């Protein structure tokens, strides 16, 4: 797999390309619409959903508030149960641990459980560079890998593909990495899944080493948890002799009992199911049963940076359900690739800047990739106030540019607007000018809004960003404050100018 997010343009540019992709728009509108409806249905049937959200948020907040203690306890529990714990500060260290384990068993391939952490650290590419093939076994990840593509959704990485495209990928690419697709392959979902099953089974049976992530890691017991739908994860977690799990440090949960709200919140929020089909739990090594060599790589890779941000640290509560993606009107239209990261959508728009900091124009564009409509916060099972964090991160982007020798046009505009808004007399003076413009526009302009008010016409420069596709009303001849002053708040007739119907634009 050679596809990479490195070098992606800032969001507005990437979004422009995505918006023009009619197939993508169609696939996403259909897929997110379907999953949104499913989620809404199964959430509605839970009587105390809001209490459950509060409980889930509280568990994760507790774990993060004392992260150091919980992680040390996790390491002790895992070690006591026969697992080997590795600590990785960044992606390179984490990848190296996995490669070392694979090399120590002299293998040239590993099978993988779907895992966001390994996508984040670009493990497949790192292993490939050392001559080790990493086979994705999750159906959607397989589609992405075979298509030399990039994931565009946390839960459904191939959400941007429809079944006709998937059939084409299987037909042309499966033969290159194992058992080819059957000649009579159709685009029926069951037929496509059957072809994937045949293709993957050979890899499951052959592999000596498996790589996974974890949805949760219980500090008290050393138990790792993987939640999935297909059973491919269960195959990877039980068949091979060696298992390496790459786990972000924010996945720790203090006690086993505290899994309760999280395991109830996750399936309803992510796939819109009451319960996910497979929940695998393993605690170190069980003699004679499953992998006999178990490694756990605890990865930071920017998480402690996020934790240091008082407003932003709530993003580490994320359980990767992707409900915020499915409900986001921006994601629905631009798709996941526009965000330039394995974490797209609203959560990606905060997680990437929190983990990577400010300074990269692509990352800096992400907090602005939102209309702040708040739908993401409303569905988040662990109550991450994404709009609040977005606004906070916007201020960090602005602050990072405060020392620029040449200020951005936006900064100049904001500073002068704020200057006008600091004193009502300045604002009134500005309104007198815009009123003058309004009078001219109303007299000379011919275009009218529905209802009759004059438009401002097509504006040049930055104004074109608005009027390129939207009419803009011409300013009224008299501002509200001028009207209030002239007519004593409408109590007298006033003098000079007509009082009524400025918005309707009639003379």
């Amino acid at each position, binding site marked *: 797999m050679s596809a990479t997010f490195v070098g992606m343009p800032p*969001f*507005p540019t990437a*979004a422009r390309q995505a918006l023009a992709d009619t197939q993508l728009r169609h696939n996403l509108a259909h897929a997110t619409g379907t999953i949104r409806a499913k989620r809404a249905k199964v959430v509605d049937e839970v009587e105390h959903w809001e209490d459950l959200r509060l409980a889930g948020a509280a568990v994760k907040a507790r774990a993060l508030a004392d992260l150091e203690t919980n992680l040390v306890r996790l390491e002790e529990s895992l070690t006591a149960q026969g697992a080997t714990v590795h600590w990785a500060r960044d992606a390179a260290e984490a990848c190296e641990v996995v490669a070392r384990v694979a090399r120590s068993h002299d293998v040239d391939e590993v099978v993988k459980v779907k895992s966001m952490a390994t996508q984040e650290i670009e493990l497949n590419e790192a292993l490939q560079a050392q001559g080790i093939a990493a086979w994705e076994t999750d159906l959607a990840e397989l589609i992405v890998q075979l298509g030399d593509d990039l994931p565009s959704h946390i839960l459904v990485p191939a959400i941007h593909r429809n079944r006709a495209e998937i059939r084409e990928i299987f037909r042309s690419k499966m033969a290159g990495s194992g058992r080819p697709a059957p000649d009579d392959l159709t685009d029926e979902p069951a037929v496509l899944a059957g072809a994937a099953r045949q293709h993957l089974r050979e890899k499951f049976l052959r592999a000596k080493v498996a790589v996974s992530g974890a949805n949760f890691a219980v500090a008290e017991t050393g138990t790792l948890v993987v939640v999935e739908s297909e059973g491919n994860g269960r195959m990877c977690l039980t068949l091979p002799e060696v298992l390496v799990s790459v786990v972000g440090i924010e996945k720790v949960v203090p006690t086993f009992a505290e899994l309760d709200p999280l395991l109830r919140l996750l399936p309803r929020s992510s796939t819109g199911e009451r319960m996910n089909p497979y929940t695998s739990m393993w605690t170190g090594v069980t003699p004679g049963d499953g992998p006999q060599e178990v490694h756990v790589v605890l990865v930071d890779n920017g998480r402690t940076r996020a934790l240091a941000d008082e407003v932003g640290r709530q993003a580490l509560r994320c359980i990767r359900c992707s409900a915020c993606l499915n409900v986001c009107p921006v994601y629905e239209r*631009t798709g996941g690739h526009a965000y330039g990261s394995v974490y797209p959508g609203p959560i990606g728009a905060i997680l990437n800047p929190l983990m990577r900091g400010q300074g990269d124009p692509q990352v800096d564009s992400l907090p602005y990739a939102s*209309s702040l409509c708040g739908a993401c916060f409303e569905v988040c099972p662990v109550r991450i106030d994404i709009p609040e964090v977005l606004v906070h991160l916007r201020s960090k982007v602005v602050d990072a540019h405060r020392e620029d020798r040449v200020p951005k046009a936006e900064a100049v505009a904001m500073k002068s607007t*704020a200057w006008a808004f*600091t004193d009502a007399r300045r*604002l009134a003076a500005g*309104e007198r000018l815009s009123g003058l413009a309004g009078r001219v526009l109303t007299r000379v302009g011919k275009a009218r809004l529905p209802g009759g008010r004059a438009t401002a016409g097509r504006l040049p420069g930055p104004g074109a960003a608005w009027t390129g596709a939207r009419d803009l009303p011409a300013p009224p001849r008299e501002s509200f404050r001028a009207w209030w002053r002239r007519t004593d708040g409408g109590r007298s007739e006033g003098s000079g100018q007509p009082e009524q119907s400025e918005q309707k634009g009639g003379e």
Partner: protein
Amino acid sequence: MKVALMVTCVNDAMFPDTGKAVVRLLRRLGVDVEFPAAQTCCAQPMVNTGYLDEAVPVVRTYVDAFAGYDAVVTPSGSCAGSARHQHGLVARRSGDPALEKAVADAPPTYELTEFLVDVLGVTDVGAYFPHRVTYHPTCHSLRMLGVGDRPRQLLESVRGIRLAELPGAEECCGFGGTFAVKNAETSVAMGSDKARHVRETGAEVLVAGDNSCLMHIGGLLSRQQAGVRVMHLAEVLAATEDDAEQVPTERPVDLAAQQSAGRTDAIQHGLEQGATS
């Protein structure tokens, strides 16, 4: 009760008729609302674009302008949300304990429908508006303030009105403040879908509680020559049978006739071009 009108910068400079409608409506209901002339803006444009330092003096102007009133009422869910949820953040950023205290002590800010239903306890405001109307619940009124069905209760009590259900009503229109220009293409893509839903209702008038969102959706509808105008909820509620000049007299557009003449396809075509250009 001493009640102040926070007209908002957008209404002050662009939509004064909305402010006048609030004044007429509240006077009719016995509230002699005042307009503190020192007011300017709630500072949301600065806050939401990340310019917190710049927002500090604007918030200071806001709290000074409204100090001493019992309540502030505003025809905007978004600006009410800013006053209630963002001013504390800006004050903390300022590091000025006096500003923090002033924000904490500021009078409560109500969005218009909250003020009517919760404070005045009315849902029938005596309005008359004989038009086919659809209502868009703006995101901040819906999700930041939680105004719920208050606007709907008020609209249902308007005489002569014919309310049409808006499909996908709770989805954002794509305005989003500076989002509308920083990510103009995405904003327009969202707005095009909203405009399509509005047209599907066959309504003559699209009503909402925020003129900023209406400026965006209305701008798209206008460019499409869709024959639908936008109007702030306050103006609908202010209209009465006696106050004939306030009742708009434009003839309703017959969307059904347009559809049978095949114009809908042309509009749809123009819409999608607008969305992707």
